[in-house]
């Protein structure tokens, strides 16, 4: 019972108000996060929120956001869920693979791989 220091965990959940699940619709690891431009940025945003808004001015997958924040994925998801609820970011649900990867994208991917 004593081998683990609960400090880091408590700090992490402090970022999310103790929540481990994001608000609203679930989103995928590679769902694309993009900052809503021109939205009013509340003054009380925590640094993690600001970091997301800055990073996602360019569309960024959820997993990348977690890596940049150096936070666990589900903590990152709670943060993203909050920002989405505030209307500060959009999170696009990836479409079915078969429909999103058309001939053009397939060829682009093959070409990209071959030129590595």
């Amino acid at each position: 019972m004593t081998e683990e220091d609960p400090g880091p965990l408590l700090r992490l959940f402090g970022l999310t108000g103790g929540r481990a699940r994001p608000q609203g619709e679930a989103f995928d690891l590679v769902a694309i996060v993009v900052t809503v431009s021109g939205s009013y940025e509340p003054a009380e945003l925590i640094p993690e929120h600001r970091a997301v808004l800055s990073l996602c001015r360019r569309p960024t997958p959820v997993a990348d956001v977690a890596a940049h924040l150096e936070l666990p994925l589900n903590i990152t998801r709670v943060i993203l869920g909050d920002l989405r609820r505030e209307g500060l970011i959009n999170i696009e649900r990836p479409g079915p693979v078969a429909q999103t990867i058309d001939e053009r994208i397939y060829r682009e991917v093959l070409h990209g791989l071959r030129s590595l």
Partner: protein
Amino acid sequence: MDYAASEPGTTAVASALAIKILIAGGFGVGKTTMVGTISEIRPLHTEELLSERGVGVDDTAGVESKTTTTVALDFGRITIRDGLWLYLFGTPGQDRFWFMWDELAVGALGAVVLADTRRLKDCFPAVDYFEQRGVPFVVAVNCFDGARRYDPAKVRRALALKENIPVVLCDVRRRDSVRDVLTTLVTYAVKGV
């Protein structure tokens, strides 16, 4: 591309696509090496907080719980162009993290099952998993130093794979070799050949 110019609430994101590919296989078979060999970034490492029971902690009671643990998730990225990426996720090796595969597998283009012929049975669970869920996969036999080269047909028989599932030999330390495996997977997943 100037995404900042888009109107609030519009789906400027529609032009961006991250394609998910899983790298599976037994412990120590070379999954992390494979991701590192081909990734344009040092494999990023994130962690998933979870409870031992395999479900997310739903309330603050979980915070005090000593059953909370973390599982590392390594992933790499290949940028095809601005707004089009391949993401490679190494699947957690330990059995107790199987449930995480469900999330990883949803929407994945396909998977590479890495096999070590010295411990071929280690990749049985991954093969079963992807077969059951209909996730396209290829089997890549990692040819370690000193390991004699195996006949892919024998590996296919040992794994009882359908004829159309590609079995290829590779060296996960070599970029061109990993690239060929991914090319095979993408073609198989999209074209079925």
